[in-house]
């Protein structure tokens, strides 16, 4: 290993340069100006989350009847009111709820539900039922295309955080979606020496000035990032040591470092609980709940919570009746979560109707595109018609 640390200690020229602080100050200011826009963070709960054991209608006798093995004990639940409660492992989410930072939209789905993971996910990600469009552009990619078209540039971009392939939700005609898997991608292993005075003033500086400034800023930013990252380990806000926790931590770091992305997307996998669901589902919901709690607290501490809304969805819920393997099979509508200081906190829609089912499945109360419509128009500032091709009555998921 080239000794980066030793190198930085020795690189006194760096600190002696009289021009450097001014440059960094300028670029830091520029970064804030560029990065003060609203951000949407999407968490995909992959595999089909069992909504009934997430937002639990504990007072409904039909729940106990449908879930003889998987029924969650009432006294361990986190009560939202006298009918509904969150899963026992969702303490963090309950705190967010009480704190006015969590909105739960109930019974969200779409007409003629499809029980294929693949197709249903494509429907959610593209907002389209047309199979021909399932490999082209996603709802968020199209939204960013609109933002960029309105502005006449390509500055609005998306970042996918994860090892998996970038989801179709972010695919766009022009806007960029980049993937970031590792925190190492942000760390500098080489400490180059940057001493040359550079005039960073002026937006249309020469190419050479631009390159120098970009390189300087990147190296200084990587330093800051690493300092922040190590600070983070000991800070009051701790991220749970889970895949989702570290992914959300990375997203927070990116937002805090002034990255320009308008949309961040990540996923938590494992929700396809066909058998022995109790333990797995409890673990998943704990990771989810603790992850978003840590994320929102972190952003709040950084005074960025006004700029960020988090959306969590799954491609479908699961069947009302448990199966014979102590699990549940693919179902239909389920809860969608919106979290942040700017959401319309509380429960939207009614508790699930476990009596009037369609084919043994919950009937949807709300089309997911009604939520998209609200986020598109009232958060990202683009026309829902242009993105979704139709106009929906917006579900009020954001605080007014």
């Amino acid at each position: 290993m080239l000794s980066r640390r030793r190198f930085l200690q020795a690189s006194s020229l760096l600190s002696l340069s009289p021009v450097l602080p001014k440059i960094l100050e300028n670029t830091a200011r520029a970064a804030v100006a560029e990065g003060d826009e609203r951000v949407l963070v999407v968490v995909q709960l992959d595999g089909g989350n069992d909504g009934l054991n997430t937002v639990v209608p504990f007072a409904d006798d039909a729940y106990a009847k449908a879930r003889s093995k998987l029924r969650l004990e009432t006294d361990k639940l986190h009560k939202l009111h006298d009918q509904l409660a969150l899963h026992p492992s969702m303490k963090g989410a309950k705190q967010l709820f009480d704190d006015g930072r969590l909105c739960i939209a109930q019974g969200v789905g779409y007409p003629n539900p499809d029980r294929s993971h693949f197709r249903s996910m494509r429907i959610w990600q593209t907002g389209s039922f047309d199979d021909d469009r399932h490999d082209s552009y996603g709802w968020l990619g199209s939204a960013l295309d609109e933002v960029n078209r309105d502005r006449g540039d390509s500055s609005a971009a998306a970042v996918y955080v994860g090892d998996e392939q970038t989801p179709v939700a972010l695919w766009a005609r022009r806007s960029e979606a980049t993937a970031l898997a590792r925190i190492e991608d942000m760390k500098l292993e080489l400490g180059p020496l940057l001493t040359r005075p550079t005039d960073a003033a002026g937006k249309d500086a020469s190419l050479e000035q631009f390159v120098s400034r970009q390189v300087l800023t990147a190296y200084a930013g990587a330093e800051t990032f690493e300092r922040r990252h190590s600070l983070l380990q000991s800070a009051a806000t701790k991220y749970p040591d889970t895949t989702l926790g570290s992914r959300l931590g990375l997203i927070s770091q990116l937002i805090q470092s002034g990255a320009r992305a308008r949309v961040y997307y990540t996923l938590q996998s494992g929700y396809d609980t066909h058998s022995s669901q109790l333990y797995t589902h409890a673990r998943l919901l704990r990771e989810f709940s603790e992850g978003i709690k840590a994320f929102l607290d972190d952003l709040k501490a950084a005074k960025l919570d006004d700029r960020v809304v988090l959306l969590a969805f799954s491609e479908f819920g699961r069947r009302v009746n448990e199966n014979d393997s102590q699990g549940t099979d693919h179902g239909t509508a389920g809860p969608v979560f919106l979290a942040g200081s700017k959401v319309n906190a509380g429960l939207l829609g009614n508790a699930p109707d476990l009596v009037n089912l369609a084919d043994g499945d919950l009937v949807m109360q709300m089309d997911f595109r009604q939520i998209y419509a609200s986020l598109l128009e009232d958060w990202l500032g683009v026309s829902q018609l242009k993105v979704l091709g139709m106009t929906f009555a917006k579900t009020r998921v954001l605080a007014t």
Partner: protein
Amino acid sequence: MCAQNATTREPVWQPYEPCAEMPWNLERVVHLHRRAGFAAPWPRLEHDLAAGPRVAIDGLVRPDQAASGDFELMARTIGDAATASGSAERLKAWWLYRMLLTADPLGERLALMWHNHFATSNRKVQDPVRMREQNELFRKYGRARFGELLAAVLKHPAMLAWLDADSNRQGHPNENLARETMELFTLGIGNYSEQDIKEAARALTGWTIEGNAFALVEARHDAGEKSILGRRGTLSGDDLLRLLLEQPATAKRLAWRICNTLMGEGAIDQSAVAELAESLRAKELDIGWAVETVLRSRLFFSPANMRSRVLGPAEFVVGSLRALELNEPPPSTLLLAEWTARMGQDLFYPPNVGGWNEGRTWLASRMIVARANFAAALAEGRLWHPARQVQIQELARRHGGANDLRQAAVWFAKLFFGNESPANVEEAVAAAEAGASDHSGAHLVALFLARPEYQLA
């Protein structure tokens, strides 16, 4: 002739002739190779410096393919293994292998340009065989008449799958192929109406893939009357391509693409592009002719065009290894593919049909960090399996007679920039000494690669 004649108007793309103000020096040799051919090793620079611009450019536009039989054989073996495995990663590695060891670096550079022009992603095509075939088209027709390239690429399964040709049927048009063909591949935005796109989509109905090849299914083709760009008739897909190739806007977009690749930011104005486009029309859109004209031009070697273009990730990675003669034995090209992806250029996976934006957008913070980290990995021999110690100091000694760090720095500056700017040398030496590393020659080279100046060609 060096001085511009004030009274008679010289042709914009007049050939470069060395003169007092614009001498044929090492800087220009380095410029030529970094811009047009993934950089060059020291012996090639020395040869071209002595031989003069005509011979140097001949070497790029008409490369000596005599010695490339073994290379082609090995490249084919690697490519076949990649496609047999179905692995897109190995396909990326195959292309990087070609870029590193080819005897025709300009050909690979042009293939990369066409990959960006006809940006197709395996994300949707999901077929390394088709992606490789398309890539070979970029090589086969990369210097041909543009019409041949256009037809070959559009009528290949990779593009047909990428832009939904199969769902474009009579009565149920899918405009994807028509729109991108007009907006990106030929005319450019603003040179057609939405109605033209609708009608062009009709002309392209029936195009699909059968087996593993292009097919026209007559039953799905809309043979009705259409009106595209003012032309009326029962226009077919082939008619559409002919029509597009006749348009002045297509020549202009082609000229723009070539200039955007070979000329730097602000090096030329719109009139130069327009002039090249005019000549291209007279030459039946002969790509090779235009490339050669640009490379031989006075504009190409003018100070305004020097170090005025941001190197793309593949150019950065491949160019560094070629210049430093670290391409034999080649590093793990699988690792190189990961590095270029980290720098923002995931080969065979362009971000969308518009391709990479290039230029200044290559310098987002994360991408710069990746470049610096690549430099560290190169210096530490971590690009090879197993990791090995790179003999960079030895190279500086052999070619530059360098016996110490400072002399090595002077030689690196010549190899990378064609001159020895004191700032480059002094700062790099100070940094390398401060680093107190065991292999300081390698460390020194990493510091050069991470410098702002190195990002430009």
